[in-house]
């Protein structure tokens, strides 16, 4: 296996196997590693060579599928995009994403997250639906640019794991779902702003955000969900003021 002179690295991985024991526990593994290995490579090495029961999610290995998130040394990260050589602490601590229920080892329950995404009405809403024969709704590159940043989200949930507001109240709509709402708010083809804003401008929606900003720090795609929430707040607040001051004006 390991040649002489091969570098070794020690990892401490948080395990949870409800079919065998009710309590989560930590398990340490020492494996050979090269400088070009990412954390996910280490997990795969363990699964292939040491313990095939180790359970975690991954697919693309290139920061696109958003499934490989875990807390590494306490920070939510994509394990496929984090080099072992960049981690200073030993052993490297790998835990499931915080703020989610753990199903097994590093696999968390994404169901609450899916519900939040859906609550943000993440689809184009039209008042005047055009028949299909009349073709697609066209958009200029400039119009696309308006929401491109928010559309880059890969649903990795790192932002939820980093968010202390979500940490103390699971009812909070949270960062990615809010950014997704803004993505459709800024889409020139959309006509459902009133409906969508009403769905997210609630107590546990955008108004619960205290602008900690950690979501934007950990986001691997620079979606800036914290900024998105502030933009939505400004939109919702101005719309409300308008409605009160000019009750008959079109919104």
């Amino acid at each position: 296996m390991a040649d002489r002179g091969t570098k070794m690295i020690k990892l401490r991985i948080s395990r949870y196997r409800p079919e065998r024991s009710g309590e989560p526990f930590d398990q340490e593994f020492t494996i050979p590693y090269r400088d070009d290995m990412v954390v996910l490579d280490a997990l795969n090495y363990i699964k292939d060579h040491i313990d095939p029961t180790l359970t975690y999610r991954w697919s693309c290995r290139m920061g696109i599928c958003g499934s490989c998130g875990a807390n590494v040394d306490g920070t939510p990260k994509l394990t496929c995009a984090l080099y072992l050589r960049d981690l200073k602490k030993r052993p490297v601590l790998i835990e499931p994403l915080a703020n989610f229920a753990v199903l097994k080892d590093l696999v968390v329950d994404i169901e609450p997250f899916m519900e939040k995404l859906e609550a943000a009405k993440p689809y184009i809403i039209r008042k005047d639906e055009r028949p299909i024969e009349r073709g697609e709704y066209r958009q200029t590159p400039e119009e696309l640019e308006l929401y491109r940043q928010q559309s880059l989200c890969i649903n990795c949930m790192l932002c939820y794991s980093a968010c202390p507001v979500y940490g103390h109240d699971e009812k909070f709509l949270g960062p990615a779902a809010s950014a997704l709402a803004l993505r459709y708010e800024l889409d020139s083809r959309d006509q459902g702003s009133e409906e969508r804003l009403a769905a997210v401008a609630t107590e546990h929606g955008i108004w619960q955000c205290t602008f900690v900003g950690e979501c934007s720090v950990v986001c691997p795609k620079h979606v800036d969900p914290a900024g998105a929430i502030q933009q939505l707040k400004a939109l919702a607040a101005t719309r409300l003021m308008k409605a009160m001051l000019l009750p008959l004006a079109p919104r």
Partner: protein
Amino acid sequence: MAAAEVDRVTPMFWGLFSAGGFVVAFLLPVFIFMNSLAYGLHVVPWEKVEYGGALRWIRGDPATALLGSTLGWLGGWLPKLFLVLIIGGGLFHGLHRFKYVLYDVGLHRAKKVLDPILYGIAAAGTVAAVVLAFSFP
């Protein structure tokens, strides 16, 4: 998730927080500069800031008014408005932020108590600023 009601109260205070922050970010540094370094750097001649001069300005004395004769009457209102904006805006902005700090350290469950207290302080401070500013002769 079940459809929740649109929150109509928070946006009001958020609006004050946001507008207050905007105003304060622009005006407060100027205010601080004009009342400290500006003298030392001779940007403002000190005679203009002695008590009598300031009083004439606040009174809207046409001789010291900034806006010429037609808008001269505004002269007396501007400094008053300025004081109210700086104090009220600062209070609503600062206490909103402070509220968030308290939420984040775990007091979010005390929202029903904290909100009235903190916004109450901001409102009282603003009213006090209005009374004070307009009680100038």
